[in-house]
């Protein structure tokens, strides 16, 4: 089973913006090529803290922090996860670097 992880924020602001649907649709797209989570696990995450830039989605260990994600962006994100495309640059670099770093610090746990 893979250690690659995709988190979709389900904090208050992201939820208001529809992160529940984004999670469901991204999971469905990824299941088309990865039905048993062999390439990546997709999970909800309570809040990344980049609320104004929501909906936020992260990929690890790629350390890609996607912001302002809409349903229209999901095929490109899924293609990136599948290894058929680059990171979707227009969705990156929108939130404060220190906010990004907090989630990478947790995922880079030395333990």
């Amino acid at each position: 089973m893979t250690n690659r992880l995709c988190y979709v924020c389900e904090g208050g602001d992201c939820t208001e913006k529809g992160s529940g649907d984004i999670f469901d649709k991204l999971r469905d797209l990824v299941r088309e090529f990865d039905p048993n989570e062999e390439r990546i696990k997709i999970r909800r995450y309570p809040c990344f803290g980049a609320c104004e830039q929501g909906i936020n989605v992260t990929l690890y260990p790629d350390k890609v922090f996607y912001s302002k994600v809409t349903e229209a962006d999901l095929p490109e994100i899924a293609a990136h996860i599948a290894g058929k495309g680059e990171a979707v640059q227009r969705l990156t670099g929108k939130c404060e670097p220190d906010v990004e770093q907090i989630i990478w610090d947790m995922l880079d746990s030395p333990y």
Partner: protein
Amino acid sequence: MSIVDLEAKIPNNVGLRENKRLMMALEKWQPKFLDWWANMGPSDFNQDQVYLRTAIGVGQGGWAHFDYVKMPDYRWGIFLADGPDDRKIHFGDNVGEKAWPEVPGEFRNRLRRLIVTQGDTEPASVEQQRMLGHCCPSLYDLRSLFQVNVEEGRHLWAMVYLLQTHFGADGRDEAEAMLERHSGDQDNPRILQAFNYPVNNWLDFFCFTAFMDRDGKYQLASLAESSFDPLARTTQFMLAEEAYHLQTGENGVGRIVKRTGEIMAEGKDPRTVGAIPLDVIQRYVNFWFTGSMDLFGGEDSTNAAEAFAMGLKGRYRESDGIYKDPKALNANYSLEMPTEDGKIEKKDIPLRRAMNAVLLDAYIADCKRIVERWNRDLDKLGVHQHIQLPDHKFNRHQGVYAGFRFNPAGEIIDEATWTKHHTDWLPTQADRDYVQSCMVHVTEPGKFANYIAPPPQGVNNQPIEFEYVKFH
């Protein structure tokens, strides 16, 4: 997907109708709970119509229903998250074995203690907050308070269900005792000291939900990894509700900080207009953040090591597979330890003994995030005085730093320095009196007390000026 029985006297998705003995036990406990709610729950608002969210299922979409309800008529139910039938243990000594549907005899006492300690905090916080409705800053916030209160009551139901189902007569006794202990009661207090502090004003309330309920999130998250499957699935669903409580606190303190920043940006002294100065907010943050860290237990703990080894409590998001070794046997944790001669030294301890510290690290990172969020709002207003999160060693009463004095920067200090400066760092009686003086009662829809900014949006797509509470 489990079947949700909403028509039962106690709504549930645990098949209560098929377990008559359990149903009778819970139906016997229900009037005692309602008595407790009437006497120890929110004071004087039980006849009012409150626009509340009620859990009606466990599916990811549409698990809750919003409507007006009188709080005593709230449908407190028992819900477990759905999970796979073949769930496996994913950490500790028994990795790979089937998760337990029943309590293993050898872990019975320890599991009971974990559940009772968690369960005791749920009614405790309702008791702590019972008078706050009388000084609410808005109808929007009054509704938030009651939402938090009824859901903490539901979380008590969740823990009582586990006790009554899996712990026999002992569990029934513990369920009764949950309603007999009271926050701040000198003879029969709540188990954890932080749940005996009074919550007298809305700055306390928002700090409580921002920091103490956030501790609750991490404790629940570690129990949600548990090898005892009913506990894992119960706490997974509690986390869905708890998220709103944390948001209430994070946004509430943030709105107070923002309002103070707005007033400062206008060149006014917050004290002249009934708002709360940043230095007072800072001392409240220091108090509640440090009190919440004490709830994690000792940083070097054999109890924590055993709970991990047995598979009772996992690390934060353990099941996501972010940790290198699910048995945590081959690593050390570097812990800052105070020495007799007044220094701080790094000491390696076996990782299993540091499980409380590992969980605390995740909590502190989360708290840093929320404080940075508040400070970004101040920056936008052109106010460059910031709220700082104190060092994790400051003002600790549990764990390896208890008994030593540290300043908020984490530097070890002597008793004389502490005596001279502690009122700069922690709320004074004058602070409490001033904050209390700001607590005006605002109940006109869409209006807010002057110490707090309105929220950016209403609840459940309703406007901010919605009548969230209809008084009888």
